[in-house]
Structure formats: structure tokens, C-alpha cells
């Protein structure tokens, strides 16, 4: 009986893990996409010659876009 319970629990655990892992992996991938876009945004803003204040504004927009992207995950 104990063995059956242990096996059932183990099965539930691994099944849960397999069901959860792809989701977390997809979320991690999506987060990577967000951060990659953020870095590209910052690189563009940083290389701009629009003036310090405008560059700061562009960088702020990059941060806001990152926040929105991460919230969608």
C-alpha cells in the first residue's frame, strides 16, 4: 500500500514537473525576448545624437516597454 502511494505521488510529481517545465521554459524564453528587445532599444537610444535629455527620455521608454513586455508573460 505504501509503495503504491509512493509510486502515485512520484508519478504525480513528475507529471506536474513535465507539465510545468515547458511553461516555465516558454516564459523564460519570452522574458529573454523582452530583455533582448530592451537591450536593442537601449543600444539604439545610447547611440543617438539627440541630446542628453532626449536620450534619457528614449531610455525611459525602453524601460517602460520592457515592463509591459514582462507583464504580458
Amino acid at each position: 500500500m505504501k509503495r503504491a502511494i509512493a509510486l502515485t505521488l512520484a508519478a504525480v510529481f513528475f507529471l506536474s514537473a513535465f507539465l510545468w517545465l515547458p511553461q516555465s521554459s516558454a516564459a523564460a524564453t519570452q522574458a529573454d525576448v523582452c530583455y533582448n528587445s530592451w537591450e536593442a532599444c537601449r543600444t539604439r537610444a545610447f547611440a543617438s545624437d539627440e541630446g542628453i535629455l532626449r536620450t534619457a527620455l528614449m531610455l525611459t521608454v525602453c524601460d517602460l516597454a520592457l515592463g509591459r513586455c514582462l507583464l504580458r508573460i
Partner: protein
Amino acid sequence: MLAIGLGCHNQAAVCRQVSPLQYAAREVRRETRVDSRSFLSRPVALVCDETRVFILDMDDDDIKVFSRSGVFEYTIGRKGQGPGELHLPSSLDILGGRLYVADSANRRVQVLDTKGGYISSFSVSFSPQRVMALEPDRIVVLSLPSGREGQEKVLHGFDGKGQLLWEAGDSYFSRDSVYDLMRNRWFIFRAPGGEFLLVPGADGRIIRRLDADGALLGETEVTGKYLSQAVEIPAGGGKKRTLRTLCWNCASDREKLFLLVPERTDDGDLGPGKTIAVIDKAGGLEATIAVPERLTRIAVDGNTLFSIDIDSGLRIFKLEPR
């Protein structure tokens, strides 16, 4: 602080009497040919060798090559992830007939020949901001700090195969990602003896000299005669933080630094300017150069100034004492 050089700082009584030289920049009339490929979208770096000027275009993901008299010759690279292809390139260096490109979005450094032939590349674990080759087997890469994990190292030394050899220099970190990034604007230049200079773009007037292993050899303070410009950047909670800029862009030639002085714009911002300050190796203000247009990027070779103006045009000047 270990001061390098024994220039005007240590002979202040004598040198303070000497006014900096003034140079005029006489524009070289460029031969122009109608060629759409020569149009610069977002030039972010330029370097030159004995025969050509190479301009890195971030938006077009390529390098546009001109003669030293400004005639467009050919293009290197295109957008992509393969060998010789670029994505958001951010920095360019040239040494011994090889171009070193910080291929930012691809997170790698590519080495190309001056005709565009692919030589090699190596991956990096960060977004590269600037690249400089001390020799083919010693490449220094400056990273754009993300701040995701707090303070980061900003200088990374690699061998020619991309093996990480050392890391140095801590990024400025205050949990304000915008302000921090502005504070982490640095420039790197080769110096004699396999050494290199680390020049701050903002908040500091200390120029550091490092060896090929990233060890600090000395520091030089740019003279107080050179006035840095300050701007208030909005921070969280309605507060403002002061950013003091040293240069918009800078170049190095024959052991002198050429700092492009930021200038106030009509709307109160601080942007590219029309003055270049020549700083000697002791940090003294040796000369100033007045140019007719606001410039965003500069490269100097002897008495020739290659530059990009605010309309993304290549401008070439001859420097002449007034």
C-alpha cells in the same frame, strides 16, 4: 593617485601663462557621386587608415567605405547573423588592415578585412558597446551594462580566439537604469606600449591608463581649464540628478585626445557641439578647434579631421593654426 606624464599640471607656474592654441578647420570639398549606397542612416563610429575612411552604420547594419577625400567606394556587411553580417553594430576599430566590429545585437565581435572579407568572430556574454584591438591577439571590449545583476565589470579582455582573459572596471550602479547608463558612457583608445586609455564620457575628468591585462597603470586629470557641461536628468519621484558630461565623442591621435565638447541646444538640452578640445598626455588643454557645424563623431589623423555632422553627413576638415 598616480599621475602620469609631467606636463603642465606639474609646471603650473609656467604653463598657466600659456593660452591654448586655436585651430581653424578648413573644410575639404568632397568629390560627390550620386550613389544611394553612400547615404548614411545612423553613423555611429568612424575610423581611417592610410587610404580610406570606414563608417559604421547602425541602422543599415553595414560599414560604408570612403576614400580619404570623401568619395564613396563600397559597402561591407549587411543585416544578419552569419559571417560578415551585422545586427545593430555599435563600434568599430581598425588595426593592421583588420576591422574589428562590435556586433551588438548578435553579441559578438567580428574581425573583417578592409574589403569586407570575413576573418573570424567570437561571442560575448553581454551587449558590446565598444571594441578596440591592442594587437590581433588582444582585444578589449567595453560592455553596455544592463544593471540586471547590480554592478558589473565593463572592460573585458579577449585573445584573438575569443578566450576571455580578464575583466576590469566596475560599472556605476544606483538602481536608476537611465541615469546609470548615461554614467557608464566610456571611450577606449590605444596608447603606446600596448597600453590603452579609458576616457569617461560623463561625470569625471580622470583619464585612466591601463595595460593589456586591464591593470591600472596611472591616472591623469583633465585640466580645470576644460569646462565640462552639466545637465539635470529627471529621476524618479519628481527629482532630478545632475549629469556632468566630459565629451560627446572623442578621438585619439599621436598621444593626444580630441574631446568633442557638448553644447547647449536651443531647447535647453545638451547635444553635440562645434568645438573640439585637444588634451595633451598630461591632461592639459593644448588647443581648441572650432568647426562650422555641430559634429557627432570624430576621428583625427595628423592634421585631418574626419567627422559626422548632425545630419549624418561625412565632413572632412584640414586643421590649421589660426
